[in-house]
């Protein structure tokens, strides 16, 4: 986030670079209009990649990159894209970006590439990406589109990271691959051991965690579906 704002401050614009309206572009999708918990988009990948923190973080970064770049590209082209083929143009741009991410992972983080395998490719079908392009980037200026994409992606990221935190902790007894259960059970002597919950490593576990997060959030914000 710091690099984004730093870049933003260099540019000159008549409207304040982080005006109230623009701040809302970033902050709204975090809680009040969260893509996962409120709009209920991008659920499939939220279930699939969240068994461990590390791949989830890589996934989150990939999604942030794809959404921001796609939003920027589409926003720059918004006056030239023929409206009758706009969906396929969006798809082509997103698919290209996702393939780039996949290739870069394969070259520089081969272990992650193996682990995430098909799920990086599936960012293409992540409804959040296409949703932001169609709903925002096509009708707004590039800088706003970047902020909007960044906000949505961040909203997605913190939810999947939260889900992954609980799933890894309860399912594998570790966080970011660092064992948590073992040292704790070590304190209580030889025979004592904390059991990991197998349910949490299966997709069902993600549903439960996600459901709980949505429940807590909606109780606090008072959001009701219409």
């Amino acid at each position: 986030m710091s690099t984004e704002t730093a870049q933003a401050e260099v540019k000159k614009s008549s409207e304040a670079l982080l005006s109230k309206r623009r701040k809302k572009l970033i902050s709204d999708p975090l809680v009040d209009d969260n893509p996962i918990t409120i709009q209920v988009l991008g659920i499939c990948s939220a279930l699939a990649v969240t068994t461990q923190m590390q791949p989830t973080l890589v996934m989150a970064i990939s999604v942030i990159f794809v959404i921001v770049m796609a939003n920027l590209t589409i926003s720059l082209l918004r006056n030239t894209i023929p409206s009758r083929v706009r969906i396929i143009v969006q798809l082509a741009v997103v698919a290209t970006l996702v393939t780039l991410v996949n290739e870069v992972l394969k070259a520089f983080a081969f272990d992650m590439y193996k682990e995430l395998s098909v799920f990086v490719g599936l960012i293409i079908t992540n409804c959040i990406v296409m949703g932001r392009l169609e709903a925002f980037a096509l009708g707004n200026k590039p800088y706003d589109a970047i902020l909007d994409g960044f906000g949505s992606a961040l909203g997605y990221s913190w939810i999947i990271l939260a889900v992954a935190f609980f799933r890894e902790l309860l399912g594998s007894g570790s966080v970011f691959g660092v064992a948590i259960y073992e040292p704790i059970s070590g304190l209580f002597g030889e025979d004592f051991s904390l059991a990991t919950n197998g349910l949490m490593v299966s997709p069902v576990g993600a549903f439960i965690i996600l459901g709980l997060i949505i429940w807590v959030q909606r109780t606090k914000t008072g959001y009701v579906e219409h």
Partner: protein
Amino acid sequence: MQQSNGYIITFSVILTVVLGLLLSGTSQVLGPIQKKAQDLDNKKQILGAVMAPEDLRAMSPEEVLEYYESRIASKVVDIEGNEVEKDSEGNSIVAESVDVGKNYKKSPEDRLYPIFIYHEEGNEDAVDSYILPVYGAGLWDEIWGYLALQTDLNTVEGVTFSHKGETPGLGARITENNVQARYQGKKIFDESGELRAVIMQKGEGKDYDGEEHKVDGLSGATITANGVNDMLKNYISYYESYIEKKKSGNSTEVAVLN
């Protein structure tokens, strides 16, 4: 906005060309790096069959490659156990570039079988263990791995398994160190020299310490475990003629080591 057909077609063509160039350019630039990463991963898996996982993890990529270079010799044999050095077109065959998965699609007689020999530094005759690739089918997708045998070509030194899409927490546990460690010290032939392989049992939590051909199973992953069993048994049988040859012909080599 309603645009003319000509505009739409021109736009699409330009977009396609630009994106296409971008993608092919990236793949050109990253291709060699990806190949290196894949090669490193492959070599790590091979070494994983004979090295402790934490030792391997502590090594930098350069150290892994260097270690591999100094400790592993490789060759390729056919089903008869004869060494193969050139393919039908006369190109020399490198064991590391033999794709076991691709070979799996051919009938066993036509496949190439790479062998990786873990030896002492600088002395290829002082063999520590023989590492054989294995390949098969799990529940959802392919599984593969490496089986390391001690110089008696009977005792298991270690194994590594990998998978593409086994169920996390169930079948995917074949990649865990504590599961793989169960194979250490097991025997693949019985006393009469009959091939028995090492069979993962049904159920989990029993102690198979005294049993030479059995290891504890994976609870809830019977089909993956069966896949592992078949994979090991099949591939040991494919390498059996090589093993026989090695045992009878090269008794001097074993004698030197013992």
